[in-house]
């Protein structure tokens, strides 16, 4: 089982390598990737440095070019593919079929991974991408239950990568319209859910208020944990009651499922968080490295250690970690 770790900059990349990442995924510093935040990600020079460090330590580098090209600007997305190919990255993580066609034709030897943004949830979908573009691996959406993951793994002819830990985007992954509804910018087209320019935190008489493009998303009392204001995790008055109408701000943690995921033949575990600091990457990667080593050794006897649970809980949004969508009995 490969441990695939996030890096928004060189120090995070090093933290990932030092703490046991098998592969690190990065993006370029523009809207060709789904973590398009100011000051984050790699330019050509730092990407080259990243590659050097990855190669000298014998790990893999994946480049995420996982947003959808906008009309009139396809050339910029093509250029991102060219840059990743120049780096001879070990894989490109993509969602746009036009771009995948370009990559397949121009760089047939380069491995393609299907991004979670493509939201492929059936064997037929995976087969389509495999036959059309020769994808080697697919990252599965976080909306699937364990049973669904197992069914997919049984029928899939491509490698599967599953999310292990990180902030939860619970709807239909790339297809969510909530962010563009409020801010005009969406994950798939602009590489960001709830762009920072639209976010406002203000201390008011009733606590810390957070607004997205002027729309009140949530209000936190002094003793409450705060979160990044994505619309799905806000509190709204529904039927006269103020509540998390769509989703609670929790982080996904599928560590307890490691034995089942391994038995199902899942090839890789992905950690979310390119927007987080090297301190987060170091702590979370180390924890998952230990857990994966343990599951490889002990198989079904694997137990989540209290120490791991503590570290992950501390680093997660909304504090408590749950099994997230992997454990939805209603699915």
């Amino acid at each position, binding site marked *: 089982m490969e441990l695939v770790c996030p890096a928004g900059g060189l120090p995070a990349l090093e933290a990932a390598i030092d703490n046991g990442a098998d592969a690190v995924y990065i993006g370029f510093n523009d809207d060709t990737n789904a973590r398009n*935040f100011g*000051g984050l990600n790699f330019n050509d020079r730092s990407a080259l440095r990243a590659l050097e460090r990855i190669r000298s330590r014998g790990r893999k580098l994946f480049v995420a070019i996982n947003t959808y090209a906008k009309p009139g600007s396809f050339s910029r997305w093509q250029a991102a593919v060219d840059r990743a190919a120049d780096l001879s990255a070990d894989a490109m993580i993509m969602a746009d079929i036009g771009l995948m066609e370009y990559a397949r034709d121009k760089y047939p030897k380069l491995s393609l991974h299907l991004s979670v943004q493509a939201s492929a949830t059936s064997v037929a979908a995976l087969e389509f991408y495999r036959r059309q573009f020769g994808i080697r691996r697919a990252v599965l959406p976080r909306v699937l239950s364990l049973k669904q993951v197992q069914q997919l793994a049984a029928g899939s002819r491509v490698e599967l990568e599953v999310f292990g830990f990180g902030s939860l985007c619970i709807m239909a992954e790339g297809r969510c319209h909530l962010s563009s509804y409020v801010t005009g910018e969406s994950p798939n087209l602009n590489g960001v859910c709830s762009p920072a320019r639209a976010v406002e935190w203000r201390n008011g008489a009733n606590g*810390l208020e957070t607004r997205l493009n002027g729309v009140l998303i949530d209000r936190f009392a002094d003793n409450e944990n705060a979160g990044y204001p994505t619309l799905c995790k806000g509190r709204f008055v529904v039927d006269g009651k103020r509540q998390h109408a769509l989703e609670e701000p929790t982080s996904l943690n599928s560590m307890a499922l490691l034995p089942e995921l391994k038995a199902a033949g899942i090839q890789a575990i992905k950690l979310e968080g390119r927007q987080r600091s090297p*301190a987060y990457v170091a702590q979370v990667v180390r924890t998952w490295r230990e857990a994966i080593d343990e599951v490889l050794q002990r198989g079904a006897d694997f137990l989540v250690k209290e120490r791991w649970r503590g570290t992950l809980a501390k680093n997660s949004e909304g504090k408590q970690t749950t099994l997230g969508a992997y454990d939805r009995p209603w699915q």
Partner: protein
Amino acid sequence: MVSIRKSIARGGYRLGCRLLPVLPKWPGELALVKFLNVQLAEELEEGEFDFLEGRVLEIAVIDFRISLRMGKSGARFVRAPASAITDAAIAAKAVDFLAIASGREDPDTLFFHRRLSISGDTELGLTAKNRLDAIDRSRLPQRAQRWLVLIAGALADAAAK
């Protein structure tokens, strides 16, 4: 040894809380700006802090009741003129700032736990955070790094009391 360090940290911390709010803040701002200009010369050259051009970022150390305001002009960080309005402010306690600077804690984690706050222009604040995260700490002088880690650890212990 450890306990001596702890009591120095605790004593120093109490002194800081009492003294710092009443001292003029320009020496602190000057020292900060100077330090950053030397340490981040390469990044400044590459334009990685251009987003700060003509803007004012405030760093508020709540427990010391001081706020340092800085911006950028040309290829250097500068103290913000008193008349300029703050565009974004990042506020936390000294111990938490040091924990971030020394790589002990993740700023987002501190934010979720309400130990760090951002107000004003969120994009400016987050960009500053991301750029600081991207700085290669191994380039800081060894001694400065060791001190940072030591002080951060001692303060964290002292604060836990």
